């Protein structure tokens, strides 16, 4: 099942790139829909049945094809596969400009393939290889299929995306190789059981710092977040959704799998720095959102703030914190996907996403889009009853009462700052709602959402509400795996 969920998107993408180049948009879309639905079914089966794959790939490097599912990766796998279907459906009535439709769909499938492989991988080096898989297809999505009006900005944003994240992942590779050389195995489960025993603490700190620094670029954590806003602004809607909802999660997932699980002692020394940077990111992102004029950039900056909460939760060293981070991960995936579907749709209709231009109020002319936007904004400011609430609430709680080996003063300060950041989130969300949604203007007219776009947005709204009302199932799914990583702590 695992192999099926990997082979199907990869094979279909390869076929689209070679033999299927001349396909029309509809045919390519149909094929990609079938492929992504089959993948989703395979992932669902894999999450339920929990199979494992383990076979040699490059023996002289000790590299194995080692795939498995556990509580940490299962929600992310489901999110990725579901959004894989979502972005393909969303593309149905917007033929991509800038290249062949076959190439566009192939890139979407390849990103999905790379993300799934990353979440499935149980070998540290294989994790790195899968981590790199998404780079080129995402780069093509941004540089070829991005905002058609700004070719220069496209090249810039795509280049920045690839260079920043490649820097991060190569740094991570150095950390992984050092870890593997020291521990003598690349099996993530064995590494996690070993828990860094037998490695001197100062080496642990160096390796953990390398891993955290490398992954921080992908998350992204202040001050290496600067690639994110341009990439989000320029990318096509489907690309933005995958970027925010899936690619960023690869960074946080890597943080859980690598430094936190395998080098707890080393990570404990690095954690305060991570928490402080996370808090700075929360404030920085919030402040940027207050003054940002481009709606897509604004959502991108809010992502930086939200990932700051995730970083704080991860750094706290408690079970609650880790649970909160994993929950916030999924919640942010759903919310940002929703926001990018709405905001991307608005940008297409308006021609730009400038907030200073006077436009018709969404409440008046496009009630569906307006509704989806309000739900997304409300969830993003952490309103109870919606998905965003639990991750942030529990994250702040975890930072207030951090693990025994964490400096309490630093973490309590971080918790206070994070709460201030949540206030900023309320401020900028309401600012956007006031400018875009409220008002009386009905000119210039834009069409409301329908068909694929509305289906995707509506499902995302439902999931946002469901996660907010009933967080239990998701928390239960991750709790077992989290307990084995953090141990018997609170």
């Amino acid at each position, binding site marked *: 099942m695992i192999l099926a969920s990997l082979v199907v998107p990869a094979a279909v993408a390869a076929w689209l790139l070679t033999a299927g180049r001349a396909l029309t948009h509809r045919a390519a879309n149909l094929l990609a829909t079938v492929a992504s639905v089959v993948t989703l079914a395979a992932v669902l089966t894999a999450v339920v049945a929990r199979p494992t794959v383990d076979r*040699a790939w*490059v023996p002289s490097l000790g590299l194995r094809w080692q795939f498995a599912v556990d509580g940490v990766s299962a929600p992310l796998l489901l999110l990725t596969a579901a959004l894989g279907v979502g972005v393909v459906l969303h593309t149905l009535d917007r033929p991509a400009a800038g290249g062949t439709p076959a190439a566009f769909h192939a890139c979407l499938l390849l990103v999905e393939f790379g993300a799934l492989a990353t979440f499935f991988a149980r070998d540290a*080096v294989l994790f790195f290889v899968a981590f790199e898989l998404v780079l*080129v297809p995402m780069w093509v999505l941004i540089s070829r299929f991005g905002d058609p009006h700004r070719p220069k900005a496209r090249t810039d944003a795509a280049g920045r995306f690839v260079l920043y994240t*490649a820097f991060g992942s190569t740094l991570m*590779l150095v950390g992984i190789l050092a870890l593997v050389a020291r521990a003598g195995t690349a099996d993530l489960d064995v590494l996690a059981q070993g828990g860094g025993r037998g490695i001197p603490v100062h080496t642990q700190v160096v390796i953990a710092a390398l891993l955290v620094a490398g992954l921080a670029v992908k998350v992204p954590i202040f001050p290496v977040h600067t690639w994110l806003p341009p990439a989000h602004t320029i990318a096509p809607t489907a690309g933005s959704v995958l970027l925010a909802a899936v690619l960023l999660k690869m960074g946080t997932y890597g943080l859980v799998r690598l430094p936190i699980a395998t080098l707890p002692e080393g990570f404990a020394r690095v954690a305060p720095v991570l928490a402080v940077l996370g808090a700075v990111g929360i404030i920085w992102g919030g402040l940027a959102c207050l003054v940002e004029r481009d709606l897509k950039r604004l959502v991108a900056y809010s992502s930086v703030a939200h990932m700051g909460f995730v970083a704080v939760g991860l750094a706290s060293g408690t079970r609650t914190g880790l649970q909160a981070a994993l929950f916030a991960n999924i919640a942010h995936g759903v919310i940002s996907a929703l926001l990018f579907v709405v905001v991307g749709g608005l940008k297409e209709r308006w021609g730009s996403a400038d907030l200073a231009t006077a436009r018709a109020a969404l409440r008046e002319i496009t009630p569906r889009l307006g509704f989806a936007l309000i739900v997304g904004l409300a969830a993003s400011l952490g309103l109870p009853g919606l998905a965003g609430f639990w991750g942030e609430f529990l994250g702040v709680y975890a930072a207030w009462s951090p693990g025994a080996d964490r400096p309490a003063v630093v973490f309590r300060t971080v918790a206070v700052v994070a709460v201030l950041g949540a206030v900023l989130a309320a401020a900028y969300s309401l600012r956007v709602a006031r400018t875009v949604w409220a008002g009386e203007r009905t000119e210039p007219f834009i069409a409301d959402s329908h068909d694929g776009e509305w289906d995707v947005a509506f499902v995302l709204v439902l999931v946002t509400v469901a996660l907010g009302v009933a967080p239990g199932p998701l928390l239960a799914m991750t709790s077992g795996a989290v307990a084995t990583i953090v141990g018997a702590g609170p």
Partner: protein
Amino acid sequence: MTAETLVSINWLVLGPVVAPAAGAVLVLLVDAVAPRAGRVHCLTGVLALVAGLLLAVPGTLQAATRPLRTLCLAAPDGACLYEAGPLASALQLGALAAALVVLLLMWPTTAADAGLRGGPAVLVCLVLSATAGAAGVAAAHDLGSWLVCLELATLPAIALVALRGTPAAGRGALALLTTSLVSFAMVALGAALWLTATGEAVFASGSVGSALAEPDHRPVLLLGVLLMVAGLGFKLSLVPFHAWTPQAYAGGSEPVAAFLAGTSKVAALAALVVVVGPLADAGAPVLAAIGVAAAVSMTLGNVLALVQDDPVRLLAWSTVAQAGWVVLPLSAQEHRSAPAAGGYLLAYVIATMVAFTVVHAISSATPARGAVANRRTLTAYTGLLRAHPLLGGALGLALLSLAGLPPAVVGLVAKVVALRPVVAEEQWALALVAVANAVVGIAVYLRWFAVLLRDPEDGPAGPVVRRVPRPTLVALVLGGGALVVTSVMPQLLLGLLD
């Protein structure tokens, strides 16, 4: 072996060296009888190289501790002058395969060799003899044959560059000649010092260890090794001995540049591995110098490649950068260092040969109507992926492999292989320089890759060339196929080395 034989010879083991050498002689003989038989020479060359390739395979199947040996002396110590372990045989395979691609590119149907003096016989003979030298130096186990094979691998390359006859080619050949002479002087001096220090003309870790232990011999040996490394640095285009590279590449025709980038580099690395091999066992500090050279080469090569507009010059500077990556693992004293350098080199050779094949196809074939006039610029590649899917796809895969990005997994795995010994030795500074260069390298190759993807300003891209000559197509399919296969199963490449 009878008592009176001085040296025992196993011709089959010597095959990878003898086959191209015999091919070279045969080509000259045929040329004397039938001077006009252009394609026969190429065919002879190709057959000789294929025979060499087949004969090199058994060596890769041996265990590293039990290499195939021949040319063994009957003297009591019984040293062997030729030792082909898996690493040496894999490098021989690389050198022979690269030469095979070069011969296919030189096939006389192409228009490019109209300007080359001497005709196909001389060209083929030069390529074959240089290849024989490259294959020989990989397995040479004593100073004498090592020096001879190294120069045999170098001198024909100078002639190949000069044969084009243009002023640029003359300048390139002159630069190459001067550096070769200097490097030969350094290598020869280094070899003499090695002989003085160890008292043996054979590369063996035992005598090196005892020479290092003696305070009188230690500085002599280290100086000798440093000189040899510097001399080989010229051939490997390591900074600061790289200056000839862009001139010679741009001066020669594309096949000749491909030869310099492929077979010549394999010969230089093979020679370096033979020298450094016993030193790594003995734990000598000269390796730090290699680390510095690696770091500087990568940085300078990548930065200068970033601003080139001529694809051949870009590939020349990328060679300088990649040479840094190749010797990077050698700076760590580990048993995996030499195979890692070999593995990286082979991955690089495959990718760069594919890139040169496409560059050659674009700039030498008959131009299509309305195509860009000057095809030695990056703009000539605009929209290649759509206009010529095969050419564009192969070049794109090669560039991604050089950059180390999936889907060209082989390049990524090669980077992992090269970094592993350095990280295991905890040389953090060197590792960080390598990380920075991995990023700059991506910028270099993606810049070109982006051109392949981009549509020209006036609508979709039209074809650039009318028809790709069949031998070039064969080379392209061989090289591109190798890239795809090794990307799916990198073990096929790395498994050769251990």
